[in-house]
């Protein structure tokens, strides 16, 4: 009885659930049997290179595409059986900034708002609030065709938020933006954390690292790793790298290091030592006692890039 209750509470806690979600395009498998459980209020990032199947996954969850196999639930509604229920409670910022070019900022928001049946006073209040948080107050009545890429991206997100959706889908929210504009958007997204369930796709590892509570690493239609940024990196601990910058490295000590550790490489005065277990002090002592002058030494923190490289044997960015 108790265990049953616990189980139910857990399911109620989920905003997005996928069951063997699969999509084929003419024999090509774009999404390959994905099983995801995203909790309410969680910011989940799908990280992967272009063509990994991230956008296809989002499009299926937004009821734009029908899965070839499997199904998914958004807030308990089935994507195949209740698509219009789902469309009422989700907000989507698509990858291509789909906005009406000759409409102004407010009109673009009001178009989506009114389609969702938001009434006038509510619409007015919410657009004002969004204009303020997203920093577009001064451009409220300007036609958006003259906007910069960053402003269009911001409006793209505002349009996804105007009807106060429960679940937010952000497909590559900072694609093609300069670092400053990306930072600004990251800050806005951070403000939304906890309030809404957010599923975000990105091929920028720093974006996933900075924003996400949990990350699903996606490649060739499959989720190949799942966890928080820390958890994913922790999985890399069995392969640590230490970078030592030292002078007077003798062939003898280099030979000694090579016999002790799995991988040792030297470029100029820099020595890279890689092994499953590295003792920082021991290495420094050994080098110093051989007469070398150690100028600096540190253990390299693994990045998500390393995680991806380790999992797939290829670089995240093409």
């Amino acid at each position: 009885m108790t265990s049953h209750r616990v189980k139910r509470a857990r399911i109620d806690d989920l905003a997005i659930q996928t069951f063997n979600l699969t999509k084929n395009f003419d024999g090509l498998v774009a999404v390959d049997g994905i099983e995801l459980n995203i909790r309410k209020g969680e910011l989940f990032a799908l990280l992967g290179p272009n063509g990994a199947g991230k956008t296809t996954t989002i499009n299926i969850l937004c009821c734009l595409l029908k899965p070839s196999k499997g199904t998914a639930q958004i807030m308990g509604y089935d994507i195949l059986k209740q698509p219009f229920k789902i469309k009422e409670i989700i907000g989507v910022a698509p990858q291509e900034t789909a906005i009406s070019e000759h409409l102004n900022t407010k009109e673009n928001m009001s178009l989506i708002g009114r389609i969702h049946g938001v009434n006038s006073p509510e619409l007015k209040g919410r657009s004002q609030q969004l204009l303020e948080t997203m920093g577009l107050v001064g451009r409220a009545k300007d036609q958006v065709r003259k906007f910069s890429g960053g402003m269009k991206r911001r409006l793209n997100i505002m349009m996804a938020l105007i009807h106060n959706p429960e679940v937010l889908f952000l497909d590559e929210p900072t694609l093609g933006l300069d670092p400053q504009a990306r930072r600004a958007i990251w800050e806005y997204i951070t403000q939304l954390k906890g309030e809404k369930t957010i599923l975000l796709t990105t091929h920028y590892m720093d974006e996933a690292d900075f924003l996400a509570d949990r990350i699903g690493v996606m490649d060739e239609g499959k989720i190949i790793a799942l966890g928080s940024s820390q958890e994913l990196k922790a999985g890399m601990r069995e392969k640590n790298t230490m970078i030592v910058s030292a002078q007077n490295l003798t062939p003898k000590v280099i030979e000694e290091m090579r016999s002790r550790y799995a991988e040792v490489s030297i470029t100029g005065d820099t020595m890279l030592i890689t092994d499953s277990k590295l003792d920082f002090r021991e290495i420094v002592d050994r080098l110093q006692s051989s007469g070398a002058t150690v100028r600096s030494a540190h253990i390299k923190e693994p990045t998500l890039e390393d995680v991806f490289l380790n999992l797939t044997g290829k670089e995240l960015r093409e």
Partner: protein
Amino acid sequence: MRVWELCKRNLRETYRDPLGMGFLLGFPLVFMLLFGAIFSGDTVSSLPVGVIDEDNTPLSQAFVNEALSEVPAFEISTYDDADTALRDLKFGELDAYIVIPAGFGQQVSRSWQGEKADITLQMTYDESELIISEQLISIINAVARAFARIEIPLTIDATPIHIETEITYVDFIGPGIIIFGLLILIPTSARTVVRDKEKGMLSRLLTTPTRPVDFILGYSLYLVVIAIAQIIIFMVAACLLGMDIVGNFWLAFLIFFLAGLCSIGVGMVVASLSKTEQQAEPLCWLISMPLAMLSGCWFSIEMMPQYLRGLAYAFPYAHAIDASRGILVRGVGMEAVSNDFLFLIGWAVIIFTIGIILFQRSMRS
């Protein structure tokens, strides 16, 4: 509500884009003026036509003197017998001659009294002159019908017969050209939807609770506004070019409107079937151009083989041309065009239903 929001958005997109607006409204104007310039004026030089009046009643004389002689394109000369006329035709001095058979006047007066009448004219023409013979038949047909349907008091002798209209080639070709203009609404409609499809706007709207029927009606409502503006421009331009409106302006407008609606529907169907503008555009022209030819936008379809005419009447445009020509040129009323009218309405309903079904199917591939 959603329909109106979508329509409003499309209207704003149009009137804030001078280039797009210019294309939608300027194009019909330029188009009409061009056709007007081609078909009006003296480009059609006077056609020498002989007349043999075998009926020889005041009515048949009136037909010759008041109706046929009033056609600017005709140069009428009277003959006493067909043999002389035939000789002149063979020598090229006539393009055609008409024999008004005995009993013509009697039949016309029966027609005027609302009785069933069998009015025939015999025409002999040089069939090697294709364009001329085509025009001749159309004009004589139109003149005779206009003449026979005019309502005048019963005492014919006392009342001078006044032909209310001069049938010119513009009168004949005008409705066809307007319908051709409305056929071009097919690519215009498809383009409007497919552009949004390509830019991702449609995908975004599809993640909202908007239903397929909302989409089709939202876009169509906007296009209806465009169609109405275009029809007004067409009709005003045609009148300025010399097209006379004998019948009810609004009835003709309604016929044009229904033809426009059918074009919008076809455009929606094409838009549902295509993913990009590059797909939609050629498909639209592949539909609208043969339809224009088949439906008789530029020439009468009476000359076409039976099976082609049957095909033409399967589409709404030949019906719309017949009906609008009847109203504008001959002044007929609703009772004469009710079949065409119902066909147009039925066709519009069916094509929109198909559009909505296809759109629904393409919504989630």
